[in-house]
């Protein structure tokens, strides 16, 4: 089955770990450690993944074709060749956008009920 025929809606809602990894990979391909750092950065340190969670989630995402491994190295001179790099597939991108749409609908509902910014 090609990525084009897969339906993003079937993957929703995403687990926080999957969603954070998709966001971390949205702008460029990354290896495990840099994904972890990026997740920590975009969540202001609120989410810090351990190696088991990170690679368990990456394995699941590879199986569901949300991401793929890439042989290309952003800068081969600067990097350890043994590292594995991951990037979003077109299906992964569609799933990320579908999840963002779902969350934005929920945010709109929360805003219309004046639930935002009460803490």
């Amino acid at each position, binding site marked *: *089955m090609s990525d084009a025929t897969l339906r993003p809606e079937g993957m929703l809602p995403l687990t926080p770990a999957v969603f954070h990894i998709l966001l971390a990979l949205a702008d460029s391909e990354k290896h*495990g*450690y840099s994904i*972890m750092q990026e997740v920590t950065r975009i969540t202001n340190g609120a989410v*810090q*993944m*351990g*190696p*088991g*969670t*990170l*690679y*368990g989630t990456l*394995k699941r995402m590879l199986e569901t074709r949300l991401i793929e491994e890439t042989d290309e190295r952003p800068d081969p001179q600067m990097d*350890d060749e*043994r*590292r*594995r790099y991951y990037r979003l597939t077109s299906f992964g991108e569609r799933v990320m956008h579908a999840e963002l749409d779902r969350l934005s609908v929920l945010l709109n509902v929360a805003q219309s009920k004046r639930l935002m910014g009460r803490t």
Partner: protein
Amino acid sequence: MNPTPQTRWIAFSERVYRVLLLLYPADYRREYGWLMVQLFRDVCRQRYHQQGRIGIALWWCRTVFDLALTVIEQRRKVRLMISKATFVHFAGFMLVLGGAFSGLAAFSQLQPDDHFTYHGLYQVLILLWAPGTLFVGLGCVGLALSYESIFWAKWTLYLCGVGSLVMTAGMFATFLNESLWNLWFIGALLHISGLTAFGLRHAFKPVLPCFRGLPLQMALGWVIIGLGILRTDSQTTNNLLSFLMFIGTGLAWLAIGQAIHRQRQQAEPAVA
């Protein structure tokens, strides 16, 4: 050159972490073990640089918690995959067994007179129906698992299989208390519904390695007997019809099971 305290702490942590990785399933460890060690070491360096030994201790707290959760998750996945793969692998064989038992049980229908109670050899033969429906049920569930990507085949085969398993439970329940025969009846309805739905679709879009109309023929046999469509005044003729339907169904499951079993054996790579 003497190792610095930093490298000593990191190397020691890494050694301990490598040992702990043995808790993960072997396949997972082979695929991701070295990547996890590399990540663990990178974070150790970063934490030591930021907070010294306290940083490494805090990282260890997180890692142990993460390890406990993910080891359980990965071990559970492996167990599920093994049980599912076994089920799928033996689906054809179970259908062969189910068909053979059901075929033998069909001879109970040749008992002269009515079939409210069975006697002697006929009583022994009707008892073979319990393993027959049990194995057919398990075989259908195995088939449903192997056709997970085909929505209609998966769910109709599940219905067919679960119905057959409920029929088995109904037969055992009837031995304990005759009033529980309704359970068998409910199971039969589920089985026939699943088989009819599967048969209708299979006639146009076959997935089993058999004649495309065979599942529908089996379902029609059940419907004809269940609704008494060909029922006559002669008990002997009715018994014969019942026998033909049950032996036909049994032989059909046997043939389907054998074809699937052969197909799976051919599809699997030969072990050197």
